[in-house]
Every structure is written in C-alpha cells, then in structure tokens.
C-alpha cells in the first residue's frame, strides 16, 4: 500500500486551515497526490483536464446571473422587501420554515435544480427574510444582514440534502444500491430510500426549531433596552 498520496490530503487541510487562496491549494493537492502515486506528468495533466471539463455542469448557476442581475438593477430586491413588509402574518420564521418545507418536498421528488442559492435565495428568500427581520428588529445592521443571508443559505442546503435522499432515482440511493449489488446484496431502491425518511423528518424539525430560536433571539433583542440610538 502506497501511503504517500495522502500528503495531498495534508496539503488541503493545511491550505484551508491557513486560509490560503483555495484554488491553488486544491490544484497543488491534486498534483501532489497524483505525482506521489506515480502518475506521469502527461497522464496527470490529462486526468486533471478531463475531470475538470467533465464537471462543467457545476458552473451552470452562472447562467442565472444575467437575468438576476437585470432584475436586481430594476429593483427586484427592493420589491421583495416592500412586499414582505406589507404581509403582516408572514413572519421570518414562517417564511424560512415554509421555504425549507418546499425545498425539501421538491428534492424528495427529485427536483433539486429548481431552487438554489442563485435561483431563489439571492433574489427572493434573502431580501424577503431581511424585510421580515426588519419588522422584528428595526435596527438590523450589516452584520445582522449577513447572518440572516447565511441562515437562508443554510436552510436551502439542509432542505435540499435531507430531501434528495428520499428520491429513489437519484445519485445517493442508486449509489448505495449499486455498491451492495456489486457485493452480492440485492436491495430495491425503495427499501433504501424509505430509511432516509426518519432523518428527513428529524432534519426538518431541527432546522425549524433553530429558525424559530433565531427569530426569538431577534425578538428578545428588540424587546431589550436599546443600546443603539439609531433603532
């Protein structure tokens, strides 16, 4: 067993820990692992080039940028905020938990590409969330805004991850089934997917509680004596 390629993992860990620019860190790690595994330079270059262009679908989100940019230029975020401010019954927690539920249900039926950070979080969920948070805490500052956007992105991720595993015809379930079938254990995709349901429910409950606690924290800050004059 050749253990030297593990140094590539070390490059990643050290590079990320020291907060170097991630792009050269990742490429260096690939070169280190590949060379220490005894790949020749031409083979390694070809492997790198082929795997990079095979992953092009991961940049598909940039196609949303022109439309989103144009709409933001025309006031989309401002409109989402104004609209949210008018809807009294739609609180921050209801907005985020509703989005979580929708995202998870869509992922459950295999529709993971329908929503996402570029498609829905930046143009809609984040500005609506900001407006809802402002209704609770009028002195919402820039650091609060960043935290809220991070919570919105986290909600999007959690909804997607713990929904997609329930879908029978998608990556995870087929990978599990394929692995077992290679090793002589035959399972139906449905039998695997069903066991993702308990975690899907737990994930929904946990993230919902955390969203609710986040809202309560904002409410408490609003109720507490003001430290800032601008509020």
């Amino acid at each position, binding site marked *: 067993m050749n253990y030297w390629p593990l140094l590539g993992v070390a490059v*990643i860990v050290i590079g990320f820990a020291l907060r170097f620019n991630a792009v050269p860190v990742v490429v260096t790690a690939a070169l280190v692992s590949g060379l220490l595994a005894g790949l020749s330079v031409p083979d390694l270059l070809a492997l790198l080039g082929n795997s990079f262009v095979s992953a092009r679908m991961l940049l598909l989100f940039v196609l949303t940028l*022109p439309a*989103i940019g144009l709409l933001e230029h025309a006031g989309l975020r401002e409109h989402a905020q104004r609209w949210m401010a008018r809807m009294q019954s739609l609180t921050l927690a209801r907005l985020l938990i509703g989005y979580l539920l929708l995202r998870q249900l869509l992922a459950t039926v295999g529709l993971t590409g329908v929503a996402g950070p570029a498609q829905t979080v930046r143009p809609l969920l984040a500005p609506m969330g900001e407006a809802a948070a402002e209704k609770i805490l009028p002195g919402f500052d820039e650091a609060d805004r960043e935290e809220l956007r991070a919570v919105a992105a986290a909600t999007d991720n959690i909804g997607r991850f713990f929904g997609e595993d329930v879908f029978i015809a998608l990556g995870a379930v087929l990978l599990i089934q394929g692995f077992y079938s290679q090793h002589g254990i035959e399972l139906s995709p449905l039998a695997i997917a069903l066991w993702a349901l308990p975690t899907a429910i737990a994930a929904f409950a946990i993230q919902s509680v955390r969203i609710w606690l986040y809202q309560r924290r904002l409410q408490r800050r609003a109720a507490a004596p003001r430290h800032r004059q601008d509020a």
Partner: protein
Amino acid sequence: MLRIEHAYWLIAAFLLYSGWRNLRDGHGWHAAFWTVLGLLFGAGDFILAQSAAGHALPAQVAGAGVIALALLAPRLKRMAHPESSSAEQRLQSAIRLGHKLLVPALLIPLVTLLVALFGAHVVIGGQALFAAPQMTLTGLALACVVALFAASVIARTPMHEGAAEGRRLLDAIGWAALLPLLLAALGQVFTRSGVGAAIAAIATDFLPTGNATAALLTFALGMVLFTVIMGNAFAAFPVMMAGIGLPLLIHQHGAHPAILGSMGMLCGYCGTLLTPMAADFNLVPAALLELRNPYGVIKAQAWSALWIFISTFVLMWLLVFR
C-alpha cells in the same frame, strides 16, 4: 434538439464576454482568468471526444489551463463593482413595476420544473426537443434565457444590459465559482491515486472490531470525517462501506444493509454541511450572497449538522441491529 452542451457553450460565451469587458476596463488578471475558463468551457466537448478517441493532447492542454487558472486566482482581488443604479432609482423602479418583477424571477424555477416534468414529451418535427441526459439542467439553462428575455421586456432594458449586470455579479463571486469544478477534479485524482484505499487501510488497522456499537460509531464518524476531507459523501461511502460497513457491521454483527446504507450516507451529508471542500454548497453561496466571512454559511449550519448527525446516529443504532 437542446442538449446540455448548448448550455456549456452559452456559459463559455458569457465567460468570454466577461473577460473582454474586464480587459476593456483594464482588469488584466480578471480578463485572463475568465478567458481561460471560457476557452476550457467552449472546448470541453472537443477535449472529451478527443480523449475518448485516444488523443490525450487536448486534455493535457486543458490540464495546463487548469494550472494556469490556479496561478491566476490569487491575483484576483475581490472587487465589488459599484451598483449600476442608485438605491433611490431601484426603489422607484420597484414601485413602478411592482409584482411584475417577480415574474421573470419565478420563471427560472417554473420553466426548469416544466422541462423536468414534461420535457421528455415535447416533440417537434418527430424529434424530441430535449436530450434525455441532464434534462433538468438543460431546462435550467433554457429557463435562464427565458427569464433574461422576460426581464428585459418587463424592465424595458436591452438584453445586453443583462450580460453586463451578470458580469458584475460574476466578478463579485470571483474565483470561488471555480472551486466546485476543481474539487470534483481533485476527487478524481484522489481516486486514481488510491487516497481512499490508503485511508481505509489505516482505518481498518485501528478499528474496534469486537463491539458493534463502537464499530457503528467509527463507521458514522468515519463517514463524516471522510466527507469533510473529500467534500462529498458519495466519495466517502464506498470507502467506509468496504472498510467497515460490509466486513464488520453487516457480515460480523448482522446490521440491516438498507438502514446502514441509507443512514450512513446521511451521516456523510452532515459532513457536507461542515466542509469548505463542498464549495458549491458552502463557499459559492457565501460569495453569491456577498458575505464577508467565506465560512459564514458553514457557521450558520454547523449546529444543525451536529443535531441531525446525533439524531441520525441514535436512530441508526436503535434500528440497524434488530
């Protein structure tokens, strides 16, 4: 017929446009970065076809291109271009256009959804309009074009303004956009270099084999840790299953395969929430939402990941050895 390759060409065109605009504005490093990336996208199909035919040279040139991107990336300073319209202008426009602004934004998920659901049945002149592989993503690309068109009609702004606004956002995201692709490539190199096998070999040497609960905990934590390192639960799964899951938990301790597989994978997903290596879920959204802390999204989901992991592990422990 619309194929996913058309979407790649569209991305290539957008990247080359961004490179050209940056060159015109005197941002040489940005121009070079987006141009190299645009060329890689445009030539991608040719590179893969040549490799399949046994000609390695185009892929080698692409590999050199990837290294060039790595050398250029540290020179890109995060530059937030000033907003192209003032807050006051945007508010006026928002009041004037109202809910109409939501239409193009909602068209992106809607058109994607329609193509995903019904795309297979759309036939024009005896030919299917959408190619079967990656139909949802092809639908997403089409949805972006439709939304851009709708946005330019509603906002009465020419479409090329959209490209300019898109380029502004692309520059704000910067090199973070590239990380998901690079990490996918790294995963391939790791696999070919035997990194997974080496980690599994080390793990099996230090394993508590006798106690079923200890072995299960090692398996679950191994899924998390390995996912954090590789950035992807799919890469961790075969390694941990071959190392611990199959020989110890299933064959020795009689664990239920479906439960072990499904919940083990979900333990890995908790790791995905924690790692910068899963750049497309954690770092790209942080850049897209213009957070100053690149790890802001990870910070926001860390506690959720921990609690989801704990509940999944407890459920698995209760159910898997029945």
